[in-house]
């Protein structure tokens, strides 16, 4: 069955989206961390080994002595032990007298200026870092500054910087993998209620339109609520359709059978006078049948509308006025005594005007058919609800039938030549569709009142 279904429209899977977002995040984050780590590693390595370099230069400077007016250096091995902490780096050093002559060590280029304590340079083709220590002498036979320049190639620095960077990247990589695993886990667990719903739906019979009872997290409860409301609407529409078909078959079959019997009688009748009388009856009955069909279709249409149309903010007084006008049009003003009892201020409610007018007309029609004129349409407002009521002076529906009037009067009294008796059923359905109710009462001044009561919306906006 699944194979024959059209494929649902699909967008990119959540896992793919999350994956792409994560990869982007990790790539950008990784690049940022790599750059930061490289910068940090370089600066850390530079600081570390610069200290060794300066320490070695200072030690050599401290070993400088004057003997008979000449500079003598007793090169300390400890200075070289210090430098050998960068085990694979070559060392260059020079002790330079104030006149520029090399006292001992390598003959290397002088520092770029007199102020630099540390500077970058090169030593036989390899980049190197240099430190300068200065020793000032002010003796009788010697005055001036002796410069000690110590340089070292930068292998150990590069290695330390690389090591720091690598370690940082390993941490980033590990964190990335962990985050990805957590993300996959999170997506799976977040989507599991959806899978549960899918399973419940798959296991259902196609006729089962009852609400889903699956417990779901708050984020998905909206979706499930919408689904349940949607199914409820479908359920009601299916129910309406079933009722309509049942009603139609029940109520139309009898008049059609009667029509056919009379048509047969007319065909068999030889007396032209009686035949004309039969045809006149057939005509009258077919008009009634047409009205009945109208009413049935109206009923279906109203219930359908009530369930599907969006509710607009409207003034109940306009509903009463339109019902009055259309009733006058249908029945002819001379036959009826229809009164309106409207308040001064608008009475607001949320509703579908057409359905409400139709419901109102039904109540009016019932009042004319079964009650005692004058008939009054009254609109009113109570504490938390509004109503449109139709009153007459007749006895109305017996009180013991109030609770099930809309059902009882569909079947029992409905079948007649002129009315399908669907009036109260339509009204009730409209009222329910508006989250309201159909209510009967006997007013103090006597007679009978049927009212559609709707929730109040608390005044005009």
């Amino acid at each position, binding site marked *: 069955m699944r194979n024959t279904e059209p494929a649902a429209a699909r967008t990119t899977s959540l896992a793919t989206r999350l994956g792409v977002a994560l990869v982007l995040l990790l790539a950008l984050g990784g690049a940022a961390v790599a750059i930061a780590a490289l910068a940090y590693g370089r600066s850390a390595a530079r600081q570390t080994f610069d200290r060794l370099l300066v320490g070695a230069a200072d030690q050599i400077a401290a070993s400088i002595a004057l003997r008979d007016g000449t500079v003598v*250096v007793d090169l300390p091995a400890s200075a070289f032990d210090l430098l050998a902490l960068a085990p*694979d780096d*070559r060392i260059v050093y020079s002790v330079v007298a104030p006149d520029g002559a090399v006292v001992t060590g390598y003959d290397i280029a002088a520092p770029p200026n007199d102020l630099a304590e540390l500077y970058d340079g090169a030593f036989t083709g390899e980049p190197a870092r240099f430190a300068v220590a200065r020793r000032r002498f002010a003796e009788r036979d010697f005055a001036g500054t002796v410069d000690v320049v110590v340089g070292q190639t930068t292998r150990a620095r590069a290695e330390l910087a690389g090591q720091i960077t690598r370690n940082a990247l390993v941490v980033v990589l590990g964190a990335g993998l962990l985050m990805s695993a957590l993300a996959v886990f999170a997506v799976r667990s977040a989507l599991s209620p959806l899978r549960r719903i899918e399973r419940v739906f798959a296991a259902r019979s196609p006729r089962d339109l009852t609400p889903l009872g699956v417990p779901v997290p708050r984020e998905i409860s909206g979706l499930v609520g919408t689904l349940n409301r949607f199914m409820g609407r479908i359920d009601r529409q299916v129910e309406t359709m079933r009722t309509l078909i049942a009603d139609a078959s029940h109520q139309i079959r009898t008049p059609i059978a009667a029509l056919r019997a009379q048509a047969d009688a007319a065909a068999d009748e030889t007396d032209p006078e009686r035949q004309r009388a039969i045809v006149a009856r057939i005509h009258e009955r077919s008009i009634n049948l047409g009205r009945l069909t109208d009413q049935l279709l109206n009923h279906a249409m109203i219930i359908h509308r009530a369930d599907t149309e969006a509710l607009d903010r409207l003034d109940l007084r306009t509903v009463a006025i339109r019902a009055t006008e259309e009733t006058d049009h249908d029945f002819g003003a001379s036959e009826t005594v229809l009164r309106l009892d409207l308040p001064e201020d608008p009475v607001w409610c949320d509703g579908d005007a057409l359905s409400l007018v139709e419901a109102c007309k039904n109540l009016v029609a019932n009042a004319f058919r079964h009650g005692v004129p004058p008939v009054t349409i009254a609109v009113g407002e109570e504490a938390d609800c509004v109503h449109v009521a139709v009153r007459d002076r007749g006895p109305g529906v017996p009180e013991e039938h109030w609770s099930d009037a809309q059902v009882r009067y569909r079947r029992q009294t409905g079948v007649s030549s002129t009315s399908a008796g669907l009036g109260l059923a339509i009204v009730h359905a409209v009222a329910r569709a508006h989250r309201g109710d159909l209510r009967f009462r006997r007013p103090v001044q006597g007679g009978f009142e049927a009212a559609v009561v709707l929730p109040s919306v608390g005044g005009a906006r």
Partner: protein
Amino acid sequence: MRSGVLALASMLALALPAAARPVPEAIGVFGAEEAAEEILLRGTTDLVLFEPVLDAFLATAPQLRIRYEQWASDDLYDAAAAACRGEFPSADLLISSSIDQHVKLVNDGCARPYRSAATAALPPEANWRDEVFGVTSEPAVMVYNRDLVPDALAPRSRFDLLDLLRPADTRFAGRVATYDIEASGLGYLFAFADSQQATTFGSLIEAFGRTGAVATCCSAEIIDAVASGEFLIAYNVLGSYALARAAEDSRIGVVAPEEYTLVLARGAMIPRQAQHPEAAGALIDFLLSEPGREALVDAHLILDVAALLPDADDSLLRPIPLSPVLLVGLDQQKRAGFLALWRETFPRE
């Protein structure tokens, strides 16, 4: 297997003025005449001592021929430094006992790095920058004449030697010898390492000066003089030569000082301008391999120090590490000061 002619060039070297180009002491050519490649090896090791090792190597590499030039250590350094400056034809491989000079060559950028599984396995003190490698293991020992100095009297340590020299009428006066560090790079290296190791060195120098000890040149000559009884004891002699001679001459006794024994690993490096660096690398790998080490053991170039020092533990062995610290001893002023101290002890005749 030797196909070349052993040329004793040392006579020639002496005949030349000091400023002349350095020349080898001896030359030997090994390997087949028709070999495709000839590598030039310069070393300080005696030709006769090194020949079996080279033969063992050539047995594994028949396509190679080796021209071995034996040099005095300072001359070898001068030649290598000149080659580094492009003023002298470069060797393909240098193997020297003056490892401080090797370290200086490496420090000055005159070496070419070589990496292999064998070099990677070396401990840090035997491999600096993948450019100079320690290939042997030779302790600095004391040698004595067993005829004139009974084994029971022979010094076991530097303290024993000091005790022997202490009496005013000691019979060792003038009959203790050591390297002349001005003439021998190796002697300088050992003496300088001693001066860095312990304060005993000061007392020893003082005792040498007081008793008129003799500083002279070259392992072979010193050991000959001990064997002949001219000297009773020689201090800081390279163990390889001493043991090689002791194996043939029962008059020679060898002692590794008990309080600490310096251990030298001859350095091998490939010069930057080497013409055949791959073949030179192959020779280094051979020297570090098991068969190479066996050949070096047979040539007394790798010594089992434990046999000389039965009670010693590793802490008494002081390998001289291949590290830039060795540059200190080569510093002009440091060297001048050290030599001045030496000269006070051993005045020139």
